[in-house]
């Protein structure tokens, strides 16, 4: 990656399976690239200092904060955002369905980050117990404090409980 005199550089990055080639300033943050350059506004900017988890994304499958990453750090890599969790035909992932069925969100602002973080958890440990779920998810804050619903949703996805089991709650 060569930088031109004005500090702009050529970036190749795959986001949710689509290859993008862009020219960006070196200081561009990944979160701004996603939201402003690519229009993927599912990833939220909460704290912007790496604490809240609203900007959680996967970089080559690893959970990271898009607000703490320079876009140049994902050169040649593959990024997954909340928009990339559902199947290409639009059908929701088991986690997404479980969040709906089991009250995994209230206002929803933290939800994209919760879903991406939980997706990373299940990729890393397909059968986490409740303590492991809680430990992994500590970095994703919910201002509505709906933590019980979030943990219940993830546990439901783990044990393969279909949406019906949570209906009527």
């Amino acid at each position: 990656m060569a930088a031109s005199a004005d500090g702009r550089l050529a970036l190749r990055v795959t986001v949710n399976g689509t290859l993008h080639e862009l020219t960006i300033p070196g200081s561009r943050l990944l979160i701004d690239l996603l939201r402003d350059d690519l229009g993927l506004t599912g990833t939220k900017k909460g704290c912007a200092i790496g604490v809240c988890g609203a900007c959680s994304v996967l970089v080559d499958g690893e959970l990271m904060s898009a607000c703490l990453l320079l876009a140049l750090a994902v050169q040649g890599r593959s990024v997954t955002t909340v928009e990339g969790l559902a199947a290409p035909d639009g059908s929701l992932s088991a986690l997404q369905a479980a969040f709906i069925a089991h009250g995994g969100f209230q206002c929803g602002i933290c939800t994209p980050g919760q879903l991406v973080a939980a997706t990373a958890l299940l990729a890393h440990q397909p059968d986490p117990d409740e303590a492991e779920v809680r430990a992994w998810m500590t970095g994703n804050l919910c201002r509505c404090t709906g933590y019980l619903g979030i943990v219940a949703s993830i546990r439901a996805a783990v044990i393969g409980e279909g949406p019906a089991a949570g209906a009527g709650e």
Partner: protein
Amino acid sequence: MRPFSYVPAASLEEAVGVLARHGDEAHLLAGGTSFVLLLQQGLVDPGVVVGLSSVPGLNTIERDGAGQLRIGAMATLGRIEGDPLVRDALPCLSEVVGRVATVRIRNQATIGGNLAHADPAQDPPPILLALDAVVEAIGPSGRRTIPLDSFFVDVFETALAPGEILTAVRVAAPSPAIRFATVKFLPRTVDDFATVTVAVRIDPSPDGRVADLRIALGAVAPVPLRAVAAENAIRGHVPDEALLAGAAELARDAVDPFDDVRGSADYKREMTRVWTLRALRRALAPSERVA
């Protein structure tokens, strides 16, 4: 923030060359967790950023011929936490890095960045001090090693010379008889910086004496430090409660914390005493081996 040009270094030699050419204008980029915040706050304003993630092999974790574990500077904390060599030889280190902040941070932050940034509240330095770690560096005048004990100079300041790059941290694998206890005292939230961290290493002798030991403290002084007077009070003795209590007071007297949201300086001094005593008790407890 002015525009900067970015140089993804293909080798350490190239990175050293770029730093030498640009002097204070150039800044290294490792994992970026601290750099991005400093950049946003205008605390760094580089003209040139030199990326280290493109240097091949800089994140390698290996055991050398002498049985030492060598952890490349670009190894992330998450990678160190889960690495089989580290888990086997240094479970105490795996445990400590596994308690840093959150999964996201651990996936991005590197051990080299962590040490070179020299934020006194970081978790890895005390356990690495207890392990007598050594850092490797490369610069315009070649390669050298620096004992971690003399690496931290002041807040955000290290013994690295201008243009020098930290390339690895090296630790001898301790014998199984050696015991460790680590504490990260977090009165607020689990993902916070510590109010005080303590790492204790005890080398027992068969006659019940403490042959040697380390007591290292973090977040309670401008630099992570060893409580040398406290170590001296215990070394060579058969430990009893009075001896440990006296040593913990010496540890308290060795620190120089500042007031912040994690506690007043007085509170941190007192917590240094309390947690040093508890860590010593734990490391010396006969029944459990605490990593």
